């Protein structure tokens, strides 16, 4: 453990920012915006420093911190990251600072509250990715909903109340199931071992070794449904289009960019390690649902009128790929899945930003409201084209690397599923280019689209980092892959069938006095 608690600083700096912003008088808008952006940007810089400090050879958790929190029930503030959560962390800080930078002009009313919610949301999201204690994880998981509820509820579109209510209740329903599962394991662990703890490692060691298969199946379902709603997987996706179309663009950025990844991260961090055999048997059901999601999402996206809805369904279709990769349980598949999470985060947020910029200019989001933009807005169409190409997975850009790895991974497991999934690349090309043509190329004959001003320097400044990241990830993904891959390999070996998890209590518990009669003693071959 490094001496300076860098992770805690990263997680709670935005919260500090939110507190500072709350002290600034409301009407002093520019100062609020500056302070908010400063805090989020500093957090981003810290997370980048984390990227360099991260030692790629080790697959297990790094930068761990441990502070007993509510010791009576055994909940500790234990956090740490590994290859998988490192990049999600960076993506969160990166997108939040860009969202805040973008919101300078697009959010007019109640700027102070907006910034407070954004920074608070930033902290909760970071908290989810770093927490290694089940209760802490659940706390951040729920806390994250609150700011998002307000962001959509207050600054959203017309049907925002309906959308945000649906989003909130839907996710809440899922996480309640998860809470039940967590508590069940907690109490079973307490009954068996006498130690009551929420620590991830010890619950993990216990659950894989001792829970009978049937209960593990139900517990897995508890977790799986909660995360499937978040991802979203096929049948649970109806909150997505409403939430995306009604959310304000900065809200969209975080909603699509990061909240969706939490579902997948949840699978990776909790559902799969806790129930390895069950999740392996679940490859087919979840794989099929993911593939349905890909095709179904793409087909629906093709007939959408509203650009945000189109992007929402395209994101739903892309996420199907990620889930497929994750559940392939192959080295390349999972690494591809994690990498694709970052790619998807970048391309979706760029798409939303571009739609936002159009919306700022014309107040309209419909695809047929525009035409021939590349004439009056060449820079905009160039950016839009690059983003579209990245999201349909053109080689040389980031989408392709992730997609190819996923398809490669899944190919090892099931060829038919890969074939159907890869039709997704055709479908995504169809609806994306259809949208691009309607927006940028053809000028509608019936009416003359007034000349829209091209992107301002600020807007270009926002988009350039994302586009650069796309090219970097597409052409030279080595630094990213070399960091993700060890943790994925570690995850696969841990969940390999027949691999008996030596029930070593996490090293934090060992320094505490463990009562004599513990299940550690009673274990065979201890």
């Amino acid at each position: 453990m490094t001496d300076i608690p860098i992770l805690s600083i990263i997680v709670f700096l935005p919260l500090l920012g939110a507190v500072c912003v709350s002290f600034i008088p409301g009407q002093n808008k520019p100062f609020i915006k500056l302070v908010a952006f400063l805090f989020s940007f500093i957090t981003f810089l810290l997370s980048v420093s984390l990227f360099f400090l991260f030692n790629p050879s080790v697959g297990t958790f790094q930068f761990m911190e441990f502070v007993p929190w509510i010791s009576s029930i055994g909940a500790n503030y234990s956090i740490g990251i590994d290859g998988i959560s490192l990049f999600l962390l960076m993506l969160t800080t990166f997108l939040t600072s860009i969202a805040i930078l973008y919101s300078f002009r697009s959010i007019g009313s109640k700027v102070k509250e907006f910034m407070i919610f954004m920074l608070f949301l930033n902290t909760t999201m970071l908290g989810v990715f770093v927490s290694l204690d089940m209760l802490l994880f659940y706390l951040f998981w729920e806390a994250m909903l609150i700011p998002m509820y307000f962001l959509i509820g207050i600054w959203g579109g017309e049907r925002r109340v309906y959308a945000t209510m649906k989003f909130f209740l839907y996710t809440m329903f899922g996480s309640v199931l998860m809470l039940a599962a967590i508590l069940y394991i907690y109490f079973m662990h307490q009954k068996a071992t006498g130690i009551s703890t929420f620590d991830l490692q010890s619950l993990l060691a216990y659950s894989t070794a001792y829970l009978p298969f049937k209960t593990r199946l139900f517990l897995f379902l508890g977790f799986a449904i909660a995360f499937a709603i978040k991802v979203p997987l096929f049948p649970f996706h109806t909150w997505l289009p409403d939430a995306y179309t009604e959310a304000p663009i900065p809200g969209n950025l975080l909603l699509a960019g990061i909240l969706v990844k939490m579902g997948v991260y949840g699978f990776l961090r909790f559902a799969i390690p806790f129930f390895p055999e069950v999740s392996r048997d679940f490859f087919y059901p979840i794989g099929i649902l993911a593939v349905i999601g890909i095709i179904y999402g793409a087909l629906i996206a093709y007939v959408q009128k509203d650009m945000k809805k189109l992007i929402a369904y395209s994101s739903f279709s892309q996420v199907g790929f990620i889930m497929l990769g994750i559940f392939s349980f192959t080295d390349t598949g999972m690494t591809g899945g994690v990498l694709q999470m970052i790619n998807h985060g970048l391309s979706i947020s760029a798409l939303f930003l571009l739609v936002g910029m159009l919306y700022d200019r014309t107040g309209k989001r419909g695809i047929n409201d525009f035409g021939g933009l590349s004439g009056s807005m060449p820079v905009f169409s160039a950016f839009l084209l690059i983003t579209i190409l990245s999201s349909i997975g053109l080689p040389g850009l980031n989408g392709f690397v992730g997609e190819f790895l996923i398809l490669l991974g899944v190919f090892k497991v099931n060829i038919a599923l890969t074939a159907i999934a890869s039709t997704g690349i055709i479908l995504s090309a169809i609806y994306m280019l259809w949208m691009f043509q309607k927006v940028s190329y053809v000028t509608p004959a019936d009416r003359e689209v007034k000349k829209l001003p091209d992107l301002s320097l600020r807007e270009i400044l926002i988009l350039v980092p994302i586009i650069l990241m796309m090219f970097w990830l597409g052409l030279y993904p080595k630094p990213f892959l070399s960091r993700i891959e060890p943790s994925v390999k570690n995850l696969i070996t841990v969940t390999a069938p027949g691999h008996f998890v030596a029930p070593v209590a996490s090293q934090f518990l060992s320094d505490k006095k463990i009562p004599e009669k513990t299940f550690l003693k009673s274990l065979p071959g201890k």
Partner: protein
Amino acid sequence: MNSTLLNSVLFVVLFPVFGSLFVGIAGKWLKKPLAGIIASCSVGLSFVISVFTFFSLIKLPPDLRFFDKVFFQWVPVGHFLVNFGFYVDPLSLLMIMVVSSVSFVIHLYSIGYMKDEEHFSRYFSYLNLFVASMLLLVLADNFLLLFMGWEGVGLCSYLLIGFWFHKKSAADAGRKAFIINRIGDFGFLLGILLIYHTFKSLNYNVVFSNAPLILSHGSGIATAITLLLFMGAVGKSAQLPLYVWLPDAMEGPTPVSALIHAATMVTAGVYMVARTHVLYQLSPVSMGVVAFVGIITAFYSASIGMVQFDIKRILAYSTISQLGYMFLGVGVAAYSAGIFHLMSHAFFKALLFLCAGSIMHASAGETDLRKLSGLRKYLPVTFWTMVIGALSLSGFPGTAGFFSKDDILAHAYVTPYYGKFLWGLGIITAALTSFYIFRMIFIVFWGDKQKESHPHESPKIMTFPLIILALLAIIGGYVGLPESNLIHRFLSPVFLGTAVLSSNVELKTIMVSLVFSLGGIATAWYFYLVNPSLPESMKKKAAGLYKLLLNKYFVDEIYERIFVLPGRKLSSFFADVFDAKYIDGAVNETGKWIKTNSEQWRKIHTGYLRNYALIILIGGILLLGFLMTKIH
């Protein structure tokens, strides 16, 4: 071969990339011709380097002419590793020379052609990007990098076809091209996955060296891989099922059609099949498929070409048919013949397209045969170069087309079982080819001048490239003379174990094919010059057939009805009915159900005090009752 040279190969690709970026970004501030000049120089530089590499490679003994230079690790995931590296060997060298030379000439031509174009620099940046991705495709040393070039080329063709984006037809054509390419790439991608699955690596050397060891001759996997790869080639090189995008691609500027849809991109499919010939050797089934698809496409598109009126459409169909020939060549294991035809075709088809461009330039963009005639006197240079191109296309002795086409036909003749049928169909197609090309020449250049048009010869910058290409169209042939057959010996280290034909067989087939092509020219001459009324009467007699050919066998309409309409109906069904009603409905329904239920429960509170007292009493009774049971 010293290392500086090897590193310089990277610059073959990097120069056009820098050119494209520079021209793209700095485009607005560059004066009109400057952007074009920079772009042409970057392509010229890469041509110089490729020639330089060619000469240094020639010095080495034949079997040492292979270099695999890895620049950096592109996608390292555990034991899955794909490098970013180039593979220099005679085949890729020949290809980069052909590609860079033809594109250099076309760049010069388009400086003149696109002079009064508003987005001048954007055009050149796309063109440079295209050349860069084509060179990357050809130089790649593993399938993934090949796929990257493959899709890059597809992207640039999308951008360039839809260059005049305000025209709806151009934008649609661009999108159609990209999507159909994408369908082909779908098969290609699955092929790559299967390759990695069987060989655990995507690098050419690894795959080709242990292909014969792992896969037995004619094994299922080999056939599957090759057919999937061929699906990609069909998509890219516009062969039978996926060819519909090429005729529409003529919406783009003519130099684009010349470069992309004649010389370079469409030949990528042929190059890929030639490159993976080791795999194709292993499965005779896919060899047969390649040959058959090739020859049938050739015949099919030649038949359509005969009746079209738009000169660019005619050339487009002729390209498809010539590609059919190349695939025939490669299908019958005459890889060097296929590549040779690819080279000669690149020259004379680019020439034909550029001539068509200068005709359009002269007659204010007019492409319809019925409105063009008697340009011989006004466009002398274009006329003569076009005639040379036409001769070379129809395989007139002495021109490049003659040697390359007959080389293929000879090999086709020799192949066992179905060889004779292929050869026969090939001969007929040769006749059709010479007929439709000379039909165009006679209509456009002979006869009296149209009244209102006042054609003028294109400026020097455009006619000079025509002359160069015309020379190449002729000299190019002597590389492949039956006796010396330089090209075959140059490529032989790449295609080991392919038989060299005995010259007498070649002589026999040459004679027959010559007769057929001359016959085609004579019929065209007779039809359109001796008595122009004949074509009209022919049309009336074979009206049905004529209508069928004119509307391109109604293929577009069939595709529309089979794929596009049901697709749209299905997605709108999903969007409006399924998603909105069932899934979303289910969620809202649960919400409403809870609401209605809570409505019922609300009625309990009547407001009367005594009702409440009664309920309390009932509660008390129940409690006591429970207590009583406990007492026993």
